[in-house]
């Protein structure tokens, strides 16, 4: 059964027979699509890409961790310096205290010797807060009023 409308008129216009023309068009379209797909398609992700991303993430994490550790290390260094300074001060303070005790003992001994020899009155006036029994300044110091006055 041939269709009602004959295709001879159409075929006369076409440069090729219709099946061949359609086939050639399809072939060309397929090849062009393949080329376009290959050239312009965005890159297809693969497990290698995922691994690359993961590695980058890990590197960033490690960098951050390194920065944090550096910060902590610098803080630790400062604290350690301060601790060393405090310890040095403590040692010096201890030395001063011992020196002071030695000096006090020496002064006590001296004053005892002076008192035994009877020259207690010849000692110059001691600084306020220090009392030497038998010295004339001892009596005045007792009656001295405190700076705030008596309540």
């Amino acid at each position: 059964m041939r269709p009602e409308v004959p295709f001879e008129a159409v075929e006369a216009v076409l440069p090729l027979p219709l099946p061949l023309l359609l086939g050639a068009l399809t072939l060309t379209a397929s090849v062009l699509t393949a080329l376009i797909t290959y050239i312009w398609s965005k890159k297809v992700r693969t497990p290698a890409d995922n691994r690359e991303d993961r590695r980058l993430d890990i590197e960033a994490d490690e960098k951050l961790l390194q920065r944090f550790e550096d910060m902590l290390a610098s803080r630790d260094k400062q604290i350690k310096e301060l601790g060393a300074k405090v310890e040095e001060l403590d040692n010096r303070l201890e030395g001063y205290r011992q020196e002071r005790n030695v000096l006090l003992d020496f002064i006590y001994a001296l004053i005892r010797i002076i008192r035994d020899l009877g020259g207690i009155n010849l000692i110059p006036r001691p600084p306020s807060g220090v009392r030497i029994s038998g010295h004339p300044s001892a009596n005045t110091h007792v009656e001295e009023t405190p700076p705030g006055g008596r309540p």
Partner: protein
Amino acid sequence: MAIPDGSNASDSRVRGALRGVHRALSALSPVDRAFIQFKASLGILLMVPLVQLPSVRDNTTVFFLVLWCAVTILGFWISLTGLIMGAQNRRRGFRVEMFGLWLLFAGPAVFASLMAGLWIITGQQRAVAVMFAVVICLAVRARMVMIRMADKNRAALYHYMEDGPDEA
């Protein structure tokens, strides 16, 4: 794998090539192998009867038939290369396979359009041939969609060895 009367150099070269082929094929999963059979049957075996059909031969030229076969067979080899590259975790593997699949797509698609043209011109019933070709085209499309889904989900199509060959 004994190679008689071969010098040492050619022997080692043949062995290296065989080892390369073995390594390339051993990276493939059963799904990969099934698709290789599918592509080979489509890109090479199917073209032989298609080209020899009298209706196809009488309405086309030899040049067109050769071009058609060349594109389809090239599509088979390129998609095979892309599939092996993808199985080896190479970055361009899926893209190359997509390129080859589009070339392979030309085989049944051109057949379908030829049959459609014959259908229009002569009015003979060619619906079975056209639908046959369309079904094969859709099978190729299914493979393309698999590749695209792997792109979309950022997941592997198949199982890959973690310590396998990396992107080269």
